[in-house]
C-alpha cells in the first residue's frame, strides 16, 4: 500500500504481538542461535579469561578494577572483550536478520501470512523487535557471565557506579546490534536470495570494519594542504577525519564504549595540550559527564538503526508478494 493510496483503516500494530512472540521463540530455539552463542562465548571467553588473570596480579589499587575486565587487552590475545564484541555483535545481528523476509518468501509463507488480518508494518516490526530482543537476551546473558566470572575470580564485588556504567555499555551494545540487524533486514527485503542478502550484509560489515578507516584517511590526505601552517588547520583536518570515521557504526560503538568504560576519557575528539591545562592526569569523570560525552554516539547509533529500518519498511511496502 503505497503512500499515494487512500488512507487505510485499522491499527498498523494489529498482529504485532503474535509475530513478535513467534520470531522470539523461533530464534531462541533455533540451531543458528546455538551456533552464534557458541561463537560469542568462545570469542568473549578468551580475552575475559586472560584479562582476569592479569588483573589478579595487579597491585595498584584501581577504583574501576571491574571495568578493566571489559576493556583490558591482555598481551597474550591482543584484543579486549569489547574489541571482540565490536565484531561479534554485527555478526550475530546479521546472522539473525539476513533471511527474515526473503526466507518467508522462499518458503511461500509470506502471502499466506499477509492474507491474515495484519499489515506489513506489523510483520516487519515484529520481526525486527523479535531479533533485537533475542540479541538483547544474548548480550545480557553474556554480560552476566562476565560479571559472575569477575566476582568469582577477583573476589570483590563491583561498585554501583561500575554496574551503572556496565548497564550503559549494554544499552550501547544493543543499539549497535540494532543497526546491523536493520541492515541485514533491509537486504533480506531487497534480495530474494538469502545467500545474496547474507553476502551483502557481511560485505558492508567488512567494508566498515576494514576499508572505511583507510578510505577516510585517504580522503583526509587528499584534502589536507601540502603544508600545515597553523594549529587551526591541523585541528580542522583531524576533525574531518574523525567525522568521516564516525559514519561507520563500528567507530560510534568503539567511541561510546571507550567513553563509558574508561572513566578517564575526557573527550572523544581532539584535545590540545592547552585544553588540558589544569586537568589532573588520570582523574576520572563522574558517570553523568561520561554519559553526556557519549550521548551523540548513542543517538547516532539509534538514529542509524531507525533510518535503515525505515528504508527496509519503504522497500517492503512496495514489494509485490506474488512469486
Amino acid at each position, binding site marked *: 500500500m503505497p503512500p499515494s493510496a487512500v488512507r487505510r483503516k485499522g491499527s498498523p500494530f494489529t498482529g504485532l504481538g503474535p509475530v513478535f512472540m513467534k520470531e522470539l521463540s523461533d530464534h531462541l530455539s533455533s540451531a543458528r542461535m546455538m551456533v552464534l552463542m557458541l561463537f560469542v562465548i568462545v570469542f568473549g571467553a578468551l580475552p575475559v579469561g586472560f584479562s582476569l588473570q592479569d588483573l589478579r596480579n595487579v597491585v595498584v589499587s584501581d577504583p574501576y578494577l571491574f571495568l578493566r575486565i571489559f576493556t583490558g587487552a591482555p598481551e597474550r590475545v591482543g584484543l579486549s572483550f569489547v574489541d571482540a564484541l565490536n565484531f561479534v555483535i554485527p555478526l550475530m545481528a546479521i546472522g539473525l536478520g539476513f533471511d527474515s523476509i526473503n526466507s518467508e518468501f522462499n518458503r511461500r509463507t509470506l502471502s499466506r501470512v499477509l492474507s491474515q488480518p495484519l*499489515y506489513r508494518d506489523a510483520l516487519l516490526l515484529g520481526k525486527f523487535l523479535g531479533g533485537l530482543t533475542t540479541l538483547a537476551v544474548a548480550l545480557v546473558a553474556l554480560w552476566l557471565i562476565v560479571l559472575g566470572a569477575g566476582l568469582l575470580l577477583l573476589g570483590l564485588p563491583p561498585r554501583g557506579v561500575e554496574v551503572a556504567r556496565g548497564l550503559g555499555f549494554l544499552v550501547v551494545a544493543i543499539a549497535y546490534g540494532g543497526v546491523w540487524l536493520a541492515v541485514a533486514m533491509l537486504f533480506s527485503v531487497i534480495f530474494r536470495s538469502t545467500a545474496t542478502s547474507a553476502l551483502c550484509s557481511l560485505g558492508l560489515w567488512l567494508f566498515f570494519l576494514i576499508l572505511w578507516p583507510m578510505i577516510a584517511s585517504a580522503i583526509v590526505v587528499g584534502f589536507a594542504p601540502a603544508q600545515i601552517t597553523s594549529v587551526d588547520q591541523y585541528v580542522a583536518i583531524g576533525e574531518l577525519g574523525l567525522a568521516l570515521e564516525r559514519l561507520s557504526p563500528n567507530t560510534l560503538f568503539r567511541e561510546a564504549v571507550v567513553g563509558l568504560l574508561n572513566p578517564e576519557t575526557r573527550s572523544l575528539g581532539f584535545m590540545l595540550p592547552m585544553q588540558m591545562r589544569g586537568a589532573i592526569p588520570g582523574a576520572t569523570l563522574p558517570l553523568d559527564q561520561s554519559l553526556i560525552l557519549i550521548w551523540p554516539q548513542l543517538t547516532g547509533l539509534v538514529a542509524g538503526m531507525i533510518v535503515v529500518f525505515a528504508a527496509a519498511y519503504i522497500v517492503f511496502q512496495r514489494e509485490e508478494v506474488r512469486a
Partner: protein
Amino acid sequence: MADNVIEARGLLKLYGSQRAVDAIDLDIHRGEIFGLLGPNGAGKTTTILMMLGLTEVSGGSIEVLGFNPVREPLEVKRRVGYLPDSVGFYDHMTARENLAYIARLLDIPRSQAGRRIMEALESVKLADVADKRVATFSRGMRQRLGIAEIVMKQAEIAILDEPTSGLDPHATFELLEMIRGLKRAGVAVLLSSHLLDRVQSVCDRVALFNKGKIALIGSVVQLANQVLGAGHPFLVEAQGTDIAAALRGIEGVRSVVPEGPQGDGGGAWRVTADRDVRAAAAQRIVSAGGSLTRLADLQPSLEEVYTRYFQEARHAA
C-alpha cells in the same frame, strides 16, 4: 445484488504500461463455487491479490463483503480465507502449531482456538498428523492444511489459487470434495485452475480470462453454447442401415457429422440437435432395421470450450 460477496467494477491493474487486469466486471454470489480460468499471465492471480488488498488497485472499484480492500484490508482479510498458489508452511513447526500461529494473528480467544484447530484438522483428515512437523507433509497434505486454515478462520469467502496443481488424481479428488464441503458450509469459493475437467465438476460458474480481460462468464453450459454453438450434442454408434439419413430425418436435428472411420453401413456420428432427441434417434434407428450400439450424451466440456475459444482468439489476432 444484495447477496454478492465480491463486486468488481472496471477493476484495473497496471504494471508500467502493461494492463495486467484490464477493467473487468465481476460478481461472485454468496455460496457459489466460481472458477477463474485462463492461461498463465492472464491476470487471475493479480485479480485475487487485489481482492485481498495485497496489491494496489490502479483503477475501478472492488468491494469484498461490503468492504474496500484498499482502505479496509484488515476487515477483508479477517473474513476471507486465502490459499495461495503452492502454499507454504513453517516446516519446523507442527500442523497444529502452524494453525495456532494463524489463530493468534486472527485474535481467536485461546479458549476456542484449540477446539477450532482440531475441528478444522479433522475436517480435512489431518487430525492424526496434527503433531507431526509440516516438513514431512506431502504436497496434498499441505494443500489440505491450507483448507484447514480457512475452515478454522470460519471465512465467508475462500479464495484458492491453483489448489489442485501438482496433485495426483486421488489427492485432487479429495481436495475437490473438501471444496464442495466448504460450499455446503455456506462459504463462497473462488478458485483458479488449469485442470479444466476438474473445475467443471465443481464450479457453478466460471470466468474465462484472456489478456487481462474476462472473455466469457457464466455456467459451463452457457459458455459452451456461446463458443461451441447452441444445442444438445450426442454421439451415435450404429450399424445396419443408412444411419446418417435416418438421423437427419429427425425433427430438431441440425447436423450429423461422421466421427471416426466409417465402415460398411456403420460407424459413429456426432449429432447436434436443438433439444434432447436421443429417444427419437434410438427409435428411428431401430425401426429402420439398424442395430444401435452406443448412444451417449456429449456434455459440453470446458476443455473444448477453452481450446476452441483460444484458437478463435488466436485466429482473430
